[in-house]
């Protein structure tokens, strides 16, 4: 990580305090069944799943309890054996109430698995179908159903699959641990993805703050010429799709386009593991691996928990929360969602739970913009955050649109850096929604 590091990267970005040392050496631990699990019918982008069970039904772990509705949707499986308590509205991690199935869990899980498939002989169609049935969604935050990403439109030529092992969010060490503990399954999962897409080139992008994972993954791909380990610079947001593609292939995804438009598909390390589990073990998505960390939690851990486990159980399992805790976040500190209580359940895309103290948050007083230009300098997409935020604030949507507000991926690098502590990305987020609404209105007009 020296100043003269030759690791590949992109222009801009920041390097927040990592805090990875809290959990990077801690092996995964499987948390026992909670008393009850809360399973939102929507744990992905797209339409809600349709429920297949009713109150009082006995279910097995792995059983489908809600089926996908439409193309962009995903099924939900019961993560535990037990009894359906009720089907009701519960708030999820974003704080909004949503339809959810609540299951009282038995002590022992009776697993209902799908038949195992041989990764050597499985066909692309079988892979896509299995991934869809297993309920896989992207683990990077957006939670896009995974099989959709494995079904590129006919006119797109994909030539590279990149596994995202950057884990550029501070604190999180889940992908790091996956690579250290299950390197061969990661590689196997990547090969299955490559097969589904008919792609010859695979890459695993890892930030250079994970020397152990880099060494282990290099060993795991030593005899596989079509897969490379690409060491990239430790810098936020290196794990953003556009930034990782730039670092690994040198290609730039144009504004408004997808990675597929430059021939790339990016999948998370966690997704590769989940695909391996779905194909080889026949296991649907019923657990989530995550990092529970922050100075406000007594015993930081890397955990494998049942989907639907309420946060309260996990925090309790990790020794409890310090009273001076200021923020509890689901996800990473740069893009995660703050919680006001601990009722919400873990979802498929949950990658971390953080309990932060004042000293980690470090929030200076907000002052007027000093036009220092730091936000412009650090913006990985070369936008002008100070102007966009100002336009958003003033409701000047046309100007904001012209300056590319919809290109913003809301990584928060600008707000993190701003010496005046102006909530830049927060204003831009608002402005972006308003511009998108304006564009929809224009289209329907």
């Amino acid at each position, binding site marked *: 990580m020296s100043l003269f590091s030759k690791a590949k990267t992109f222009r801009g970005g920041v390097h927040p305090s990592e805090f990875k040392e809290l959990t990077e050496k801690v092996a995964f631990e499987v948390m026992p069944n909670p008393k009850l699990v809360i399973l939102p019918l929507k744990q992905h982008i797209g339409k809600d799943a349709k429920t297949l069970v009713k109150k009082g039904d006995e279910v097995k772990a792995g059983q489908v309890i809600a089926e996908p509705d439409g193309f962009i949707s995903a099924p939900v499986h019961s993560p535990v054996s037990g009894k359906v308590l009720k089907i009701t509205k519960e708030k999820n991690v974003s704080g909004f109430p949503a339809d959810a199935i609540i299951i009282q869990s038995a002590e022992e899980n009776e697993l209902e698995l799908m038949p195992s498939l041989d990764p050597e002989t499985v066909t692309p169609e079988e892979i896509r179908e299995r991934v869809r049935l297993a309920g896989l969604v992207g683990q990077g935050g957006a939670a896009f159903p995974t099989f959709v990403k494995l079904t590129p439109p006919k006119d797109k030529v994909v030539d590279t699959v990149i596994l995202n092992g950057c884990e550029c969010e501070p604190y999180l060490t889940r992908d790091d641990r996956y690579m250290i503990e299950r390197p061969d399954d990661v590689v196997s999962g990547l090969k299955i993805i490559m097969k589904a897409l008919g792609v010859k080139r695979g890459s695993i992008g890892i930030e250079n703050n994970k020397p152990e994972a880099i060494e282990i993954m290099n060993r795991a791909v030593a005899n596989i010429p079509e897969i490379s380990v690409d060491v990239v610079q430790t810098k936020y947001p290196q794990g953003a799709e556009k930034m990782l593609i730039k670092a690994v292939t040198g290609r730039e995804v144009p504004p408004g386009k997808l990675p597929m438009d430059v021939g790339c598909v990016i999948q998370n390390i966690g997704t590769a593991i989940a695909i391996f589990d779905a194909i080889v073990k026949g296991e649907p998505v019923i657990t989530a691996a995550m990092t529970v960390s922050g100075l406000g939690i007594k015993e930081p851990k890397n955990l494998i928990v049942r989907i639907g486990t309420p946060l309260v159980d996990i925090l309790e399992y990790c020794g409890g929360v310090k009273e001076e805790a200021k923020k509890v976040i689901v996800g990473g500190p740069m893009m995660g969602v703050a919680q006001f209580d601990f009722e919400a359940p873990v979802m498929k895309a949950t990658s971390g739970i953080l309990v932060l103290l004042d000293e980690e948050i470090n929030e*200076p007083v907000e002052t007027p913009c000093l036009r220092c230009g730091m936000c412009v300098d650090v913006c990985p997409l070369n936008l002008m955050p100070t102007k966009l935020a100002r336009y958003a604030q003033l409701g000047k949507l046309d100007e904001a649109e012209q300056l590319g507000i919809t290109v913003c991926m809301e990584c928060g690098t600008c707000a993190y850096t701003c010496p*005046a502590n102006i909530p830049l990305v927060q204003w831009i987020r608002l402005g972006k929604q308003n511009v998108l609404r304006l564009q929809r209105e224009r289209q329907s007009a």
Partner: protein
Amino acid sequence: MTTVTANPSYKLRLASSPHVHSRWSTKRAMWMVVIALVPCMISAVIFYGFYQLLIMAVSVIFAVATEAAVKYFRKRELSIGDGSAVITGLLLALILPPNFSLFFTALGAVVAIGLGKEIFGGLGYNIFNPALVGRAFLQAAFPVQITTWSVPNFAVEGVTSATPLAAFKFDKIGTAVSSMLYGNIGGSLGETSAIAILIGGLFLVFAGVVNYRIPLSMILSMIVFGGVFWLIDGTAFPSPLFQIAAGGFLFGTFFMATDWVSSPVTPNGMWIYGAGIVLVLVMIRLFGGLPEGVMYAILFMNGFVPLINKYTQPKIFGEAK
């Protein structure tokens, strides 16, 4: 450590991401600039005596008091803690001639904050560098006093109170580069010692307070523009090295042109802004009536900053070249 309940008794902060912030704050950056000015303050005392501390004190006190008064009458929150008025006061003092009248100094500080900054709405809203506005006012109001220079302490034989630029311009007398390096020459309080300025200035660059682009652009531009004239006629025009070391160039480069508020925010804008300042400066120094022109050159380019920002917007990632 307590038992975790679903609804904790204490308050959790809700906010939209990001949930953490860098070590940067307005206050921290401002006080770092004050620290960076310490070497220049020391050189002023070494070469011109302890009286100069009085000038600095008066300038700072009146700058801060003016800001406080304006905030009070406009019923706005006091903002003294951010340190920006302290910087303006210090910067103004350091570009005044040694042994300058304390009364005029106070007047300059009031104008710098009042007309240079608060009239636009305070920190962040001013167009021109406030300290330079104060200095420009004094130059117009008291042209004689503000060009009355003092002989530095430890003056080697032949060193007069005339500034190196004036000596060259009006009498074609050169000055040893070594004297300009240490600061043992005639000039404003904080402008004479190249070494003191470089210590503070490079500290700001490496600490990340000051973006390297503006200083680098100015120094490279001086080598190019100043060099062209020097190559054309080495007797009529001074060497670029002399131009860099003399007058307010280095001080202006590191402490005035880099003022966040009055300089561009775009990377390319910073390069253009620096080059523009030097172009104007070389014209004033070599062809104008004044020996020195850093102040006017920077103020002139300050006025172009909104335009520069507008036309140097960076190309969005992935846009066609």
